[in-house]
């Protein structure tokens, strides 16, 4: 059974649809990326999966259970976390407080998970008492991903986690995503840097105009001339 299954969803923010029958799935343990030109609806798909954009038609299944149009506060309890592209930390809270907020619904002792997140992102441990709003872009991304990890989700959705970061930091973030993936957590990511993302992921989707056009392994998509043409020609 797929971890996540998106079956022909249509929807948008009210008014005209942005998504026109998107199909995609994530298998347990996979890293899946969505690439595509601007305005293809990549971010919107994620928001629709996470209950932030109404779905008019189609179904979304998570571990075989329907989550279509559920509230995000309920979806997060089912074991899926989402890190938006922007405004993804609480700026006035310290790093540690941000991570604690990620564990808000946990009633057990989460200090082990906290230590674990600090292990994955060592810079956060040194800066745990600093306000998240004062961190660099890369560190903020670490806080955002770390916060999403506090509930030990089965699927982590990242919307352009490397946007606006320097090449070294991009390397680091990708490397960490790999580390987290090795722990058995699946990823669904939107990436602007298509080549980089496809060479990194297990599988990828090319989206244009609200539809998923191509689905294949990363290298195959990269080698497909139609994909590159569509991506660039958009």
């Amino acid at each position, binding site marked *: 059974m797929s971890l996540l299954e998106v079956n022909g969803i249509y929807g948008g923010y009210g008014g005209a649809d942005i998504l026109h029958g998107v199909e995609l799935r994530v298998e347990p343990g996979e890293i899946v990326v969505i690439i595509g030109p601007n305005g293809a609806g990549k971010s919107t798909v994620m928001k629709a999966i996470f209950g932030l954009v109404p779905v008019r038609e189609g179904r979304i299944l998570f571990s075989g259970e329907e989550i279509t149009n559920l509230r995000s*506060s309920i979806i*997060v309890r089912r074991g899926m976390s989402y890190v938006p592209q922007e*405004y993804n930390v*609480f700026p006035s809270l310290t790093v540690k407080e941000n991570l604690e907020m990620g564990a*808000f619904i946990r009633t057990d002792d989460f200090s082990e998970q906290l230590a674990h997140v600090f292990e994955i992102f060592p810079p956060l441990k040194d800066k745990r008492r600093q306000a998240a709003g004062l961190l660099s872009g890369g560190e903020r991304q670490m806080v955002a991903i770390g916060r999403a990890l506090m509930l030990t989700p089965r699927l982590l959705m990242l919307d352009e986690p490397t946007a606006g970061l320097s090449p070294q930091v991009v390397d680091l973030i990708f490397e960490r995503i790999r580390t987290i993936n090795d722990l058995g957590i699946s990823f669904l990511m939107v990436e602007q840097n298509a080549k980089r993302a496809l060479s990194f992921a297990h599988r990828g989707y090319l989206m244009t105009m609200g539809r998923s056009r191509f689905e294949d392994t990363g290298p195959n998509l990269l080698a497909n001339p139609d994909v590159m043409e569509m991506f660039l020609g958009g």
Partner: protein
Amino acid sequence: MIEILQVLIFGIVLGSIITLGAVGLSLLFGILRFANFAHGDMMTVGAYLALVFVAGLGWPIYAAFPMALAGGAVVAIAIDRVLYKRLRRTAPVILLISSFGVGLMLRSLVQFIWGPQSLVYEPGIQFPLEIFGLRIKPDHLVILAGVIILVILLHLFLQYTKMGKAMRAMSDNMDLAEITGIETERVIMWTWALGGALAAGAGIFLAMDTRLQPFMGWNMLLPVFAAAIMGGIGKPYGAIAGGMTVGIAEEMSTLFFSPAYKSAVAFALMVIILIVRPTGLFGGRSR
């Protein structure tokens, strides 16, 4: 000189009462994103709730105080459940007007139950203490100590409890709080409880300083708002500085103008500060 110091003391007492109201107002604004025009009347309700225990049951005021705070919290939560909860996703202006209506209802209710006349907790005159030629009423010391304790308790709550941190998180970014899994409705309930309790505390102190009167809180609304805005609305810590500034400025102004212009002074000061620092003394949100 002694006269200025004397007025300063009055200003500090008034400022601490305004602070208590403004802190709650700012906290509510930060999380619910609307200006609660019923805040002054929530102060009034708190003051009269304490009267129930003092005059009705013969309790001393210090025993009635926590009961009235709890009562203020319950009233605030009840109003939220009945009214504001249904309006959660509407435009802020609708919430603002609704709160105006709530204020009117609370005020009328108080007047209906207790009548329009002035009342006091304990009849009789309090003789002021003479300290270095300054006259200080024992009640003033109680008020000041009470406000300091409540503000410290609030600070500890906001900094060190899970719910307090969640309040700050929601004030930072409501949408992110929701997708993080923070139970926003529960946090909102706690925010109303705190806002209601703080308002009740402010009302009781105001009644100790002056008298109980159905319009007492409504009349304080302007300085309380001025203080909250001055401190950067949505920033409870800024409201402390705002409250003290407004209180001291209001009392100091009586050295030069008729006391009738107190509120005008508070507002003039607010306008000046907003011109110099548009987001308030501590750079609150500009939205």
